[in-house]
C-alpha cells in the first residue's frame, strides 16, 4: 500500500467519522424528542384518528358478535348528517357556544382585574395570589360540588345568607338561566387564578420606563392602561383566550357535579351530550364519535384563527 493510498484511507476514515459525528449531532435532538412524540402519538394522535375513523361507522361501543346492532357498518358521513337533525346535539352545541361567548370574556376580565390588583410585589399580594390561585389546583368535580353546596336552594349557604336579610330563596340551580349563570360562576372561579398568574407574568415583563415616560408626559392612568398595558399584554391575553376557549368548549366535570345537566337539559353542554350518546345510549358510538369530530374541528379552526389574528396584530 502506497503512502497516497494510506492518506486517502485515513481521510476517508476521518470524513466517515465526521459524518457519523454530524449524524449523531443532528439525530440526538430527534432521539430526545422520540419519547414525547411516541406518547403524543399513542395517547393523542392515535385516539384522535381512531375516533374520526369510528365516526364513519354505525356501531356499538363494544362490538359483541351476538348483538348485530353493535357490529360496525360503514356509513360514510351519515353520522355527521344525522347530527344536524338531532335536537339534543344541536341544542347542546348552541348552549356551548353561548357558554363560551359569555364565560371566556368574564373569566378574562376577572383574571385581568385580579392580575392588575395583585401584580405589585407585596407580602399581602403574595398571600392573596396563593389564595386566588388555589381553585386552579382543585379538580372540576370538586369545584362543582363546592358550588352545589353553596347554591342549593333549600339548604345552601347563599340562600341561607339571603334569608338572614329577609330575601326569599333563589332557585339558583332550578331555573334555566340562573343554572347556566351558576355554571359560568363556578367555571370562572375555577380558572381565574391560573389565568391571573399568566397575566401577572405578562405585566411584569412590560418595561417600567414606558410608564415613567408616560407619567412625565402627564398621561392619565386609563390612557396608560389602554395605550401601554393592554397592547403589550396582548401575547399573554391571547394565551388566556385560546386556553379559555378550548376549556370552555370542553366544560364537563363542573356541570356534572353542579347541575348534572339540569334543570331538565338546560345545562347539558357538548361534552356531556357526547358522553351520554356514547355511554348511556345503546350502540350509538359512531354518532358520539361524529360529535367529537365536530368539536375537534371547531376547536382547531378557532385556535388557528385566534393565533393568526394575534400574529397579524403582533
Amino acid at each position, binding site marked *: 500500500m502506497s503512502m497516497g493510498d494510506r492518506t486517502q484511507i485515513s481521510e476517508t476514515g476521518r470524513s466517515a467519522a465526521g459524518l457519523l459525528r454530524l449524524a449523531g449531532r443532528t439525530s440526538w435532538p430527534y432521539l430526545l424528542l422520540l419519547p414525547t412524540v411516541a406518547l403524543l402519538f399513542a395517547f393523542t394522535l392515535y385516539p384522535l384518528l381512531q375516533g374520526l375513523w369510528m365516526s364513519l361507522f354505525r356501531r*356499538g*361501543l*363494544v*362490538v*359483541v*358478535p*351476538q*348483538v*348485530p*346492532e*353493535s357490529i360496525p357498518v360503514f356509513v360514510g358521513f351519515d353520522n355527521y348528517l344525522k347530527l344536524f337533525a338531532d335536537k339534543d346535539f344541536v341544542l347542546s352545541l348552541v348552549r356551548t357556544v353561548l357558554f363560551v361567548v359569555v364565560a371566556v370574556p368574564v373569566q378574562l376580565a376577572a383574571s385581568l382585574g385580579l392580575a392588575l390588583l395583585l401584580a405589585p410585589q407585596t407580602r399581602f399580594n403574595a398571600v392573596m395570589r396563593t389564595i386566588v390561585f388555589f381553585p386552579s389546583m382543585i379538580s372540576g368535580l370538586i369545584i362543582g360540588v363546592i358550588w*352545589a*353546596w353553596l*347554591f*342549593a*336552594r*333549600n*339548604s*345552601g349557604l347563599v340562600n341561607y345568607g339571603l334569608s338572614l336579610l329577609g330575601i326569599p*330563596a333563589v*332557585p339558583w*340551580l*332550578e331555573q*334555566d338561566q340562573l*343554572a347556566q349563570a351558576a355554571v359560568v360562576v363556578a367555571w370562572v372561579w375555577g380558572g381565574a387564578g391560573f389565568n391571573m398568574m399568566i397575566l401577572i407574568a405578562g405585566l411584569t415583563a412590560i418595561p417600567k420606563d414606558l410608564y415613567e415616560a408616560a407619567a412625565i408626559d402627564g398621561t392619565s392612568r386609563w390612557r396608560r392602561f389602554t395605550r401601554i398595558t393592554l397592547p403589550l399584554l396582548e401575547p399573554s391575553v391571547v394565551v388566556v383566550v385560546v386556553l379559555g376557549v378550548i376549556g370552555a368548549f370542553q366544560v364537563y366535570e363542573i356541570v356534572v357535579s*353542579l*347541575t*348534572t*345537566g*339540569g*334543570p*331538565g*337539559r*338546560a*345545562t347539558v353542554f357538548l361534552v356531556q351530550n357526547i358522553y*351520554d350518546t356514547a*355511554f*348511556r*345510549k*345503546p*350502540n350509538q358510538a359512531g354518532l358520539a364519535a361524529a360529535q367529537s369530530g365536530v368539536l375537534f374541528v371547531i376547536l382547531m379552526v378557532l385556535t388557528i384563527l385566534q393565533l393568526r389574528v394575534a400574529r397579524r396584530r403582533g
Partner: protein
Amino acid sequence: MKIVKHTAMALVAATALATPVIASELQLGWYVDGDEQEQTLRTLLDQYTKLHPDTTFDLQITPYDGMSEKFRQYAASGIMPDVSLTSSMEPVVRPFLVDWAEVNGKDWINQFVKGWADGAKLGDKVIAAPLDVTAVGIFYNVDAFAKAGVAVPQAGATWDDVLPALKQVSEKAGVRFPLVWDVSAHRYLTYQFQYGNHIYSEDAPVKVAMDDASWVAVLKQFVKVTEDYMPPGLWSGSSSDKPYDMFVNQQAVAYMSGSWQIQSFNDNAAFKWQAGPTPKGTVSSSNVGGNYLVAFNTSKHLDEAISFVNWITSPEVQAVYAKNFGLLPANKLATDVAYSSPDATAAVKGFQQDLENSPRYAATDQAWPEMQAGVWDAVKASVTSVVSGQSTAEDAVAMLHAAAEAAITATK
C-alpha cells in the same frame, strides 16, 4: 434395577403427599357502596377461606354504572371472572351462565323471594342466584307525628289520605317540608306502579306495556305532589338538595326511599322513625330490586365457584349477610336475621310485607335488561323535563315510550 424402580416410586409418592393441594383463586366481579361495605365483604370472603382453605378470592371492584358495558366486554372477549354480582343478566352473557336448575335442581329457586327469583329464570333454566332484595318505601318521622298530634298512617292508606296528613304534621310540628323523595327513576317508577302502570310486559317475549294516557295522568299527579309537598325544585333535575340529609336532619316529615337506608337511619337518626306502611295509589306496590350472583361456565374453578355461590345464598349465611349489609335477605328461609335494633327489625318486616303485597310487574320491570339500555335515564328525564317546564307530560311520556321500544331493538 428393582431398587431404583422402588426408590423412584417412593419418591413420587412422597412428593405427591408432600405437595399441598393447589389453591383456587376465584375472580369475583363486585360493586360496593363504599369502603365500609368493601371491608364487610372482604371479612365475609375471609370467613369462607377459613372454612375452605383451598379457595381464595381476587376481588375486582367495578362501578355499578359500568356493569352493562363490562358484561358486553366479557362476551366480546370471552374472558370472564368466575363469579359476578349483577342486577341484570345481559342477553349477551346468558350463554356463558351456569344453569342453577341443573346444578341444584329446579325447585332450588323457590326458596328465594318470588318476584326477584322470577327474574333469575330463563325458560326452564335458572341463570342467576338471588343474593339480596331491596324494596322502595316510605319512612316517617314518628316524633314529628307525635308532636303534631296526628296519627301515623296505617296500612291501606292511600296517597290521598297521607299527603294532607304530612302537610298537617309539617305545619303543626314546624318541620320544613311534608315529604322528600329520592330523585331517582327507580323511586319514581314505584309511584307509577302504584297506579297500575308499568313499562314492559311481565312475560317473555318482552313488549312495551305502557298505557300512555294513564302514564300522563299519573305523571301530572306526581308533578303536582312535587310542587305541593316537596322542597321547591327538588325534582328539577339539577337540585343539589339531598333528601336523605333533609330527613335525617328533621327537615322533612316523610322520606320516600328504600330498604337500604335502614342501617343508616339506625345509626344516624336522632329521632324515632318508622318504615312504612307505604301509601298506595290504586294498588299497593313497592319496587322489587336487588342483586344476583352469576357464575360463568368458562371458569377454570367451576366447582369452587358453584360451592361459593351456594354457600353465600344458603339461609344461614344469608341471615349474616343481610344483617352485616343492612339488606333484606333474598332467601326466604333466612328468617332469624338479628338486625341491630328493634326499629331496624320492624322496618325490615315492614318492607318485606310491602314486597309481598306488590304486583308481579314491580319485580319484572326492573329485571328486564332492556331497562339498562337507556330506559332508566328516560324515566327520570320524563319527570325532570316536565318539572323544569321543558316538556309537556304528553311529550315526556311519548319520549319514554319511544326509548322503551328502542331498548328492545338494541338489546336483541
